[in-house]
């Protein structure tokens, strides 16, 4: 077992067969996806979201009625569509990385444009959802649940906006030839940031739209 782990760690990730990829973690302490700076950023962003989650829990403990009824007044389909869109965007980003690793920059750029497209769909759906809420009198000062809903989701929406900017930057780096199959740590960093945005929504969606 030890022999197998050592041999797997010594070869590039791309060369690991799927059977081995699905097994137990084969950590490489020296390998940091992207670069250390992006992980400082990711943990900073997650700390920021953590503050929102703590506020959510405290408000929920104090105003259980509002948190029982609040999700029923939100547009579940809009939240679900945005969840599907974000998951798909992360999937497209990984496909883009796989394509670039396989020395296919054209396919990589197409996958990454699909990621950006998902980001734009997310923003459009969120804008429509806010309008839908406003038309029904649901505003930031309606009650504590909706105040937290607006602050958390608006903050997340901003991250989708500038996360898309990071992916677009990576696309142009590929186009210019700066990123290729052997050198694309900037793309990995942008993709990891994008996955963090997806992860934050994986918590936000159930807390605000599903859990009662």
């Amino acid at each position: 077992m030890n022999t197998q782990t050592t041999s797997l760690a010594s070869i590039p990730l791309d060369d690991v067969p799927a059977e081995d990829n699905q097994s137990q973690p084969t950590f490489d302490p020296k390998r940091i996806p992207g670069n250390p700076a992006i992980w400082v950023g990711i943990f900073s962003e997650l700390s920021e979201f953590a503050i929102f989650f703590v506020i959510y829990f405290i408000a929920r403990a104090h105003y259980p009625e509002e948190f029982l009824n609040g999700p029923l007044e939100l547009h579940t389909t809009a939240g679900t569509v945005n969840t599907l869109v974000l998951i798909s965007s992360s999937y497209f980003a990984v496909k883009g990385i796989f394509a670039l690793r396989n020395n296919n920059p054209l396919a990589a750029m197409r996958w990454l444009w699909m990621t950006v497209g998902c980001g734009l769909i997310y923003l459009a759906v969120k804008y429509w959802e806010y309008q839908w809420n406003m038309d029904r009198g649901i505003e930031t000062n309606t009650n504590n649940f909706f105040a937290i809903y607006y602050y958390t989701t608006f903050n997340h929406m901003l991250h989708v906006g500038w996360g898309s900017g990071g992916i677009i930057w990576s696309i142009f780096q590929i186009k210019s030839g700066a990123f290729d199959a052997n050198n694309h740590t900037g793309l990995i960093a942008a993709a990891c940031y994008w996955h963090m945005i997806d992860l934050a929504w994986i918590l936000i969606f159930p807390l605000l739209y599903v859990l009662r």
Partner: protein
Amino acid sequence: MNTETNTNTSKDSQPYLSTKHLDRLWCVMIGITLLNAFIAEKAEPSVMITLLICGMIVIKARLVIDYFMELKEASPIIYYLMNAYFYLFPLIALLVWLNPEPLAELTRLSRF
């Protein structure tokens, strides 16, 4: 379009079966999301539903962390920190759902 599909099939998927594994992960996450939506629309609040919701958060987060971010093959410090975050908050959600009073009492302004 056909060219792209063929290229992806031959160059993106064939050499490393992990692409197929990735496709399956995407389907699983789509399925979990749809189940979440069904719960939001149809299910009445209960302990089992809350447990299910928290469990689904953990599963989806693990899939993204392990495979999309490829942290399973990276630094264990980052891997465990990320995992801890996405175990901790669903656990707090469950505890606050089960018994909100201690947290409400702890954070009551009149205490200070």
